Structure formats: structure tokens, C-alpha cells
């Protein structure tokens, strides 16, 4: 019974952290992007606007949730759930720190595969939500979502192949251990810069965040696949976006920034957790920063970029990495 209880408790805590992280991520983004745009950002609700996410949540809960008359009711209803559940369960394999209490299943040896698989499921939320809405804007958004995800999933996978080749394991815990905790040059971002850049770009596309936010391109498709959604269903899509953002940042930290490693992290679980948090926050702010800076890609250019640029680079990177490993070049085992 004990392991079941342990995993249940850990899962509940993780879900709560995921949900809370989502709420406060919206605030962090609004504050940070506000500063970038020479504004102040929300500061009315509570001190420094700290209660803003609660107010937003409350508002969305009490809003009427409208289902269009011509919509496919069942799919329209479950699409937000399909979107948000995979986003939340990704956290299961992420090692948050140097303690068994800080990771749920980070030791499983198919961690990378699990991440890729779960992320692929998440896109069904957008596709089904868009198609079931019976709205032209929404279905265009859904179409864009499926095309975009398929194109970028491949390059994302290839960037991770290089990581797995280097670490010799698909377990996220092993990948962190491999990056020589304590030595910054051990981080894979320095030994796999191409894979890191590739992962960063494709992750952004996978998240459908600016400049790849064609799925919900407000200026073109009003709100894309979310056009017909309101109330809590809308909030779930929103939540899935932000939770995925946090998850992607955590994954980037794990794969390329040495995870929880840092000076003294081997001995203290608290330090390791703090290091992990800081690195993750940097990634999150970078995502927001990108949004404040870049214009949006165009649909056809996005596809061309994915297939003609990122995919060949990813393939070449895997080849070169494999070659370096086979030739036993120092630093590449």
C-alpha cells in the first residue's frame, strides 16, 4: 500500500503545483511583458497585483460556459480536458531536485519517449476543439494546430535524440546525472548547442507561443481554435498553454541546463530545488521576452522553416553527434 499512497500524494501535490504555477505564471508574464512594453502590468488586486490570478480564476468560474448550437457537444466538452491533462502529467518524469521526494517517476528509463508521447496527445485538444466548434475561424485554427505540431514534433524529437545519445539513457534522472553536477561546462547546452537551439525553437512552436502562435493568431483568426470557448473551458485551454510552458521550461532545464545541478546541490535537496527553480524561471522569462519582441510567422513560412530548415539541421546534428561518440572524441565519451 505504501508506494501507492506515496505516489498518490506526490501526484496530488504535483497537480496542485501545476495549477498554482499556471495561475502565477500568468501574473509573471503580465508583469514582465508590461515592463518590457513600458507599462506597469496588473497591480490593482492585492499587493503588487498578487491576487490577480485569483480574481481572474473566479471570474472565469462564474462566467457562463456557452456551447454553440451546431457544435459537436461531446468533443467540444472534452477537448479542453484532452489539452490540459497531458500538460499536467508531463511533470511526472521531471526531476525537480536531488531527493526521491522531488521526483515522481524521473527514474523510468523511457522518460524522453514519455515526454514526446504525452506532448503529442496534447495537440488533439486544439485540433478537436477547433473542429468541433463548427466555426470557420476555429477550424482554421485547428487545421493550423495539426499541421504545425506534426512539422515541429519531428525536429523536437531529433534534438532529443542527440541528448539521449550523449547521456546514453532516456531517463531524465540519468540525463541530469550525466551533466556532471557542479561543473557548468558539463551542461549539454555547451556540448550540444545545436540541439539546444533546436529544442528551444521547436518547443516554442510546440507550445504555439509567439512567434509561432498561429493556432490562436488573434489578428488573423480572432482566437483560433478557442474562438467559441468561454468560461472554465476557455480557462482550461489557457491553463494547458501555461502549464505546457512551465513543463517545457523544466524540460529545457533538465536536458540542457544541468537540471537541478549546481554548487552544493548534491548534498542539499533544498539547494537543488532552488537551482532548478531559478533555471526554469529564466527559461520562462525568455519565452515571454520572445513574445514581446518578435512578429508572428506566416503559415507557409512556418511549415517551410520546420521541414526545410529545422529537420535537416536536426538530422545533421544527430549524425555528427553519433559520429563524435563513435570516434570517442573527448567530451563525447
Amino acid at each position, binding site marked *: 500500500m505504501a508506494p501507492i499512497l506515496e505516489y498518490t500524494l506526490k501526484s496530488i501535490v504535483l497537480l496542485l503545483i501545476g495549477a498554482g504555477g499556471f495561475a502565477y505564471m500568468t501574473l509573471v508574464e503580465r508583469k514582465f511583458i508590461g515592463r518590457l*512594453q*513600458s507599462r506597469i502590468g496588473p497591480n490593482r488586486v492585492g499587493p503588487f497585483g498578487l491576487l490577480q490570478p485569483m480574481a481572474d480564476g473566479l471570474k472565469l468560474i462564474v462566467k457562463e460556459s456557452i456551447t454553440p448550437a451546431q457544435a459537436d457537444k461531446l468533443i467540444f466538452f472534452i477537448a479542453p480536458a484532452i489539452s490540459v491533462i497531458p500538460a499536467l502529467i508531463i511533470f511526472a518524469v521531471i526531476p525537480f531536485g536531488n531527493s526521491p521526494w522531488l521526483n515522481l517517476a524521473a527514474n523510468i528509463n523511457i522518460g524522453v519517449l514519455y515526454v514526446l508521447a504525452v506532448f503529442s496527445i496534447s495537440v488533439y485538444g486544439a485540433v478537436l476543439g477547433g473542429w468541433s466548434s463548427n466555426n470557420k475561424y476555429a477550424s*482554421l485554427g485547428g487545421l493550423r494546430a495539426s499541421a504545425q505540431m506534426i512539422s515541429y514534433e519531428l525536429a523536437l524529437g531529433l534534438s532529443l535524440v542527440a541528448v539521449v545519445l550523449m547521456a546514453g539513457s532516456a531517463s531524465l534522472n540519468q540525463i541530469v546525472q550525466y551533466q556532471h553536477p557542479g561543473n557548468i561546462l558539463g551542461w549539454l547546452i555547451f556540448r550540444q548547442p545545436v540541439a539546444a537551439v533546436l529544442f528551444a525553437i521547436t518547443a516554442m512552436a510546440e507550445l504555439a507561443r509567439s*512567434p509561432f502562435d498561429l493556432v490562436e493568431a488573434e489578428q488573423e483568426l480572432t482566437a483560433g481554435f478557442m474562438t467559441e470557448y468561454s468560461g472554465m473551458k476557455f480557462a482550461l485551454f489557457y491553463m494547458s498553454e501555461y502549464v505546457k510552458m512551465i513543463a517545457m521550461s523544466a524540460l529545457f532545464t533538465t536536458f540542457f541546463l544541468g537540471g537541478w545541478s549546481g554548487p552544493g546541490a548534491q548534498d542539499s535537496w533544498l539547494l537543488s530545488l532552488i537551482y532548478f527553480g531559478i533555471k526554469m524561471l529564466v527559461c520562462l522569462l525568455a519565452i515571454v521576452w520572445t513574445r514581446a519582441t*518578435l*512578429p508572428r510567422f506566416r*503559415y507557409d513560412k512556418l511549415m517551410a522553416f520546420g521541414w526545410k530548415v529545422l529537420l535537416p539541421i536536426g538530422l545533421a546534428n544527430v549524425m555528427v553527434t553519433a559520429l563524435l561518440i563513435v570516434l570517442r572524441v573527448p567530451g563525447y565519451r
Partner: protein
Amino acid sequence: MAVREPDQQIKESPGSVVSAQDTQMDITLDQLRQLVSPRALSGETMLMNMGPQHPSTHGVLRLLLELDGETVVSCVPDIGFLHTGIEKTAEIKTYTQGIVLTDRIDYLAPLICNLAYVGAVEKLADVDVPLRAQYIRVILAELTRMSSHLVWLGTHALDIGAMSMFLYSFREREMLLDIFEMVSGARMMTSYFRVGGLWRDIPDQFADAVRQVLKLLPQRLLEYEKILKENPIWRERTVGVGVISQADAIAWGMSGPSLRGSGVNYDVRKAMPYSSYDHFDFSVPLGTHGDVYDRYRCRMEEMTQSLKIIEQALNKLPDGPVITDNRKIAPPPKHEIAYSMESLIHHFKLWTEGFRVPVGEVYHAVESGKGEFGVFISSDGSPKPRRIHFRAPSFYNLQALPQMSKGALIADIVGIVGSIDIVLGEVDR
């Protein structure tokens, strides 16, 4: 009159006339069908309404898009949602009262509309405007052009997804609106120009405020260039998109930066100088390809040129009266009324019925931020215009949209609409 979606409502046989109660116009079904390709009627392509409520149609423009996937097969603009009847209303207003209406035509450049209108009335009534007033008009018109371009830059960049640009350019626009408020008391609905000059002289802080703009804006414009000019995504989205050739641009009656982006050197300020624009040294930026990027470049360069004009005008600003001393047109100063019977009569006449202008017709054009803004007035000698017409550049520029957007993607449509810089208040009047 709305274009109906054929699959739902239209049941009549081809060629029949849509009932008059529905449309009030004699438009045959065949004519309606001409708007889209036969493929749309069979359901092979998708008809999509973009607007009138849509985040990037700049007001209430409705576009009927025929889409093949994401590719636009045809695009039919539908206007009239912001019709305010300004031209008709002007017929029951005196010439002075009419100024207030012109603020509302291009509400992003009210002073330029004021300028065009008073210019036309001055031409008709043959009134001389003091040089000081002319120079102040030039300064304010150029500031207005910049504020109009800043709104364009912000919204255009926002349409293409560069959202911060919007907030930056509105921050700068605020400085300009403060100046308008300083001179006229209103940020947007200025009505500052009068027939024969200005409502009142500029306040003392005016020169300092304008110099502040002259100091700050060049740096800020440089920042904007850094964000967008060489940005690969921005270039990808704008270069080669929405191309219109010189000949087509002229044939559609386009004007302003949208025309100059195609390389046609036509600027009313140079071609038919008004308000002593010929006293100032400035150049007219031209594009070469006629695409969205060139139109963007033209407007950015124009802002720099505007700064140049403002600086010259401010340095050369002469002293003197700001309104003509023709008492038949301009009201006498308050102190004169106290002792001059004649002034009292003028005052009374001007305020009870307004001034009269000779019988005739006049067309006067100015270069607004959007293009050639023209005013046509037909006068029957009474204090009110018999008929007035505004040649709104946005209206003519918008006509070219279907041609520019053929074969484009949905994302390009918002880029193209942004690049021709329409203001719906002006399109519909």
C-alpha cells in the same frame, strides 16, 4: 447591403432580382455571384466573413474572403458600417460650424482634415492667411501626420504580431496629443483652424513642447527601426506581399504613402503646395516594389521628413497675427467690439448667420497621412455650402485591396489592410 451566403438563403433562379424590400437596390443575383468564384457556390472553397467585428480590420471593415485552404481566392470589401453622414450634415451647418465635422472624418488626423476644409473655404472666399498662421498650420499638420503614422505603425505591427511596437508608438503619440490639447483644448477633436487663420495663438509652452518632440522622436524612431527594419520575420511577412504596380496604383486612384510605395512621385505638398509648404526643404520618400515593406519604409521615412519640416517651420516662425483681419470672415477681437459699432455688427452677423462666400465651386487638396485628402465645395452664395464632398484617400486606397490580396494568405490580408492604412471614419464618412 449585405452579400448573402449562397448556400443558405438564395433560392431564386439565376438572373432573378433580389426583392426590393431586402436590398433597396437593383442588384441581380448574378451580380452577387460575380463577387465570388463558381467554386464557392459549389462549396469547394470556403466563404469567410472577416469583420465587421474583427481585431485587425481597423474599425468596422467587412471583408468577404473566399478561401482555398488558407489561400485567398478573392476578397470583397464591404463598407458603410461607420457611415456618419458628415457630407450631408455639413449642408445645414455654416462654414465655421463645418470645421467641427471635419475632425470626425479621419479621426486619427483631425488637424489635417481641418486644414483641408478651411483651405477650401479660403480658396472659395479668397481670403489671405497670415504667414504665422500658415507656419503654425504646417507644424501642427506635420505633427498630426506623425501621430497618424504612429497609430498606423503600432496597429500594423500588432497585426503582424509584433505587439510591443503598438505600445511604444502609442506612448510617443501621447506626447503629440498633449501638444494638440495644449493648442486646442482637445486631444483628438481639435477644430483648431479657422477660415482665415487659427482659433487663437499658440501658448508659450508650445515651442518647448515641440522641441522636446524633435529631440526625443528621432531616437525613438531609431529604436523602432531596430525592432522591425531588418527583422527576418518582419521582412518575410512584408517583402513581396500585397504588390501593386505603378500603373495599377494610379488606375485605382491611390495616393499617399500607399501610392509612393509603388514608386510614383506624387505628394500634394510638392505638386500643389498649400499653406507655404514650398518654403520648406524636404524630400518625398519613394518605394520601388510596391509591396507592404516598401509602404512601411515610405511611412517611416516620412516621419523623419516631418520632423525636418517641423524644425524648419519652428525656426522660421514669424511674429504677427494668427488670423486674417478681414472682418467679413474672421470675428473682431473682443476689445474692438466695445467701441466700434462696425465690429459689433460684424460680430453679430458672424455669430447669427455666419459669413457668406461667393457662388462657385472649389476643390482643395492636402496631403494627409493617408494620401490626397480633397474637399470639394459647391456654394450658392449663402452662409452654408450647397454641397460638400470629401475625397477621402482611405476610400480610394481600399479599392485596390482585392487586387493586392489575390493569391495571398489570410495572414497577408491583415498585413495588406494594415499597409494601406485605412481609417474607417474616412472611408464611410
